[in-house]
């Protein structure tokens, strides 16, 4: 039997963990990983924090790689442009084509952009190390920083820029910062913590216009208010990188729809999707499939995809058990550490069960049938451990 070739498209954590899982499950054929950035996989959470306050190189952010993937072929610096499932090849932006026996989609997400009229110099997004380095060069003590969006990236950026001495305004259509993942009460409490550090929020508003010649000098809100701006960061969420997969019969409504093995639904050839772009079932989600952009999901989905794909390529039985992985997020803002398990963002109600919202606290979240579906703590990482155990035990039953 000739050796099979797995092409992993996406040079982030999900691609790397899938490659490692392929090896751990006995796949000995060729693995090639395509990445649009010039870097091998690196850790992105520090990009909104340490990478803005100190000079961090790729070497310092790079993920440790197991010896088992030392022979992976890296094809870096060019994005995938077109999949042809019929001929089993992927064409890159640089014009090269790469054939495969099996494809792993790990192309993740990119920042969503708003069509705001005006100049674009001084306008940033934050997804890559290059993004962080160009942002770092511009955020200085006294800079006027306008952040559009009040999710995790917007809030972490607000905290880091404030610590660096910038004057920070956050403009967001949401009623409270981070309201989607944590609800209005904890969101409001986090807003107060930010305001105490000097951040100004413009909630329920958006930016209508960037003003200036070529460099943005100020922004005008939909309310008519104008804010001085040296640096503007768009952090209003993200879109999955799946355009290159069109016209191949894949369900791309929300990322790539896959089954519990992370194998693309409806594909006759082995195509898998992991990480931020994977719309997968999970015992924890109930009957729904979800695409979850938490740091632990590329690892969890990559492990499962690697095991299933190794089985498929060696003619073994594919795993038949449910996929289950507990979503978890954390966020460091100023000296505060937020930690969550489960899906607090899908809750109908919440209750503070320990502490107060303006100090260390634990908030439990309940779904519409009043069942615990998530928990968030501030500065209570250790105290949250029993929740993790409880959720994991619940999924195993």
């Amino acid at each position, binding site marked *: 039997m000739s050796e099979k070739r797995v092409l992993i498209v996406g040079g982030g954590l999900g691609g790397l963990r899938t490659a490692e899982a392929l090896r751990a499950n006995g796949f000995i054929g060729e693995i090639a990983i395509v990445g649009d950035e010039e870097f091998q996989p690196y850790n992105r959470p*520090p990009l909104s*924090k340490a990478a803005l306050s100190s000079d961090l190189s790729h070497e310092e952010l790079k993920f440790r790689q197991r010896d088992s993937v030392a022979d992976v072929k890296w094809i870096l610096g060019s994005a995938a442009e077109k999949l042809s499932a019929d001929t089993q090849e992927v064409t890159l932006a640089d014009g090269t084509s790469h054939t495969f026996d099996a494809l792993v989609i790990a192309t993740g997400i990119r920042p969503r952009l708003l069509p705001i009229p005006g100049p674009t110099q001084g306008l940033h997004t934050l997804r890559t190390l290059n993004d962080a380095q160009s942002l770092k060069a511009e955020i200085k003590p006294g800079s006027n920083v306008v952040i559009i969006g009040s999710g995790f990236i917007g809030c972490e950026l607000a905290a880091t820029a404030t610590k660096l001495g910038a004057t920070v305004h956050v403009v967001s259509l949401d009623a409270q910062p981070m309201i989607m993942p944590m609800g209005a009460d904890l969101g409001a409490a986090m807003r107060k913590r930010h305001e105490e550090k000097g951040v100004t929020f413009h909630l329920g508003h958006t930016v209508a216009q960037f003003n200036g010649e070529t460099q943005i000098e100020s922004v005008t809100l939909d309310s008519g208010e104008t804010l001085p701006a040296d640096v503007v960061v768009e952090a209003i969420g993200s879109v999955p990188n799946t355009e290159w997969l069109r016209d191949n019969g894949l369900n791309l409504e929300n990322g790539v729809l896959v089954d519990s093995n992370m194998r693309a639904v409806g594909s006759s050839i082995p195509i898998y999707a992991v990480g931020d772009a994977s719309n997968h079932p999970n015992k924890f989600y109930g009957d729904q499939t979800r695409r979850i952009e938490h740091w632990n999901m590329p690892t969890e989905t990559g492990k499962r995809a690697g095991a299933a794909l190794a089985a498929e390529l060696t003619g073994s039985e594919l795993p038949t058990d449910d996929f289950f992985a507990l979503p978890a997020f954390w966020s460091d803002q100023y000296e505060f*550490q937020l930690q969550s398990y489960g899906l607090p963002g899908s809750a109908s109600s919440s209750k503070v069960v320990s502490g107060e919202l303006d100090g260390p606290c634990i908030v439990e979240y309940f779904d519409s049938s009043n069942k615990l579906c998530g928990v968030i703590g501030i500065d209570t990482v250790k105290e949250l451990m029993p929740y993790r155990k409880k959720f994991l035990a619940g999924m195993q039953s």
Partner: protein
Amino acid sequence: MSDQLSLGVVSDVPVGTARQFEVDGDLIVVVNTTEGMFALEDRCSHSDVALSEGEVDGCLIECWLHGSAFDVRTGIPTSLPAITPVKTYPVFTDVTDPNSPILITKGTN
């Protein structure tokens, strides 16, 4: 002055693994590597997480929750988000003898 404390025996911690021991209310993780046995405070310096639940790879132990790895020989983090070292303790044992007690020095240094 320093106290020498006994934390099980060598066979309790196979090479390539880590194990938590509780001594006087303090949690200590013992890590056995091909370069010897090491002991550290069992608490990531970024978040309050037990390192002993993490993965051992060579002389690194990686926090399972946020991904910081620490060099078990020095306690120094080799990757973010952790930036401060975790405390290490000198270990005295004979790793070639499965029944050798693992002794650590919990000094006042």
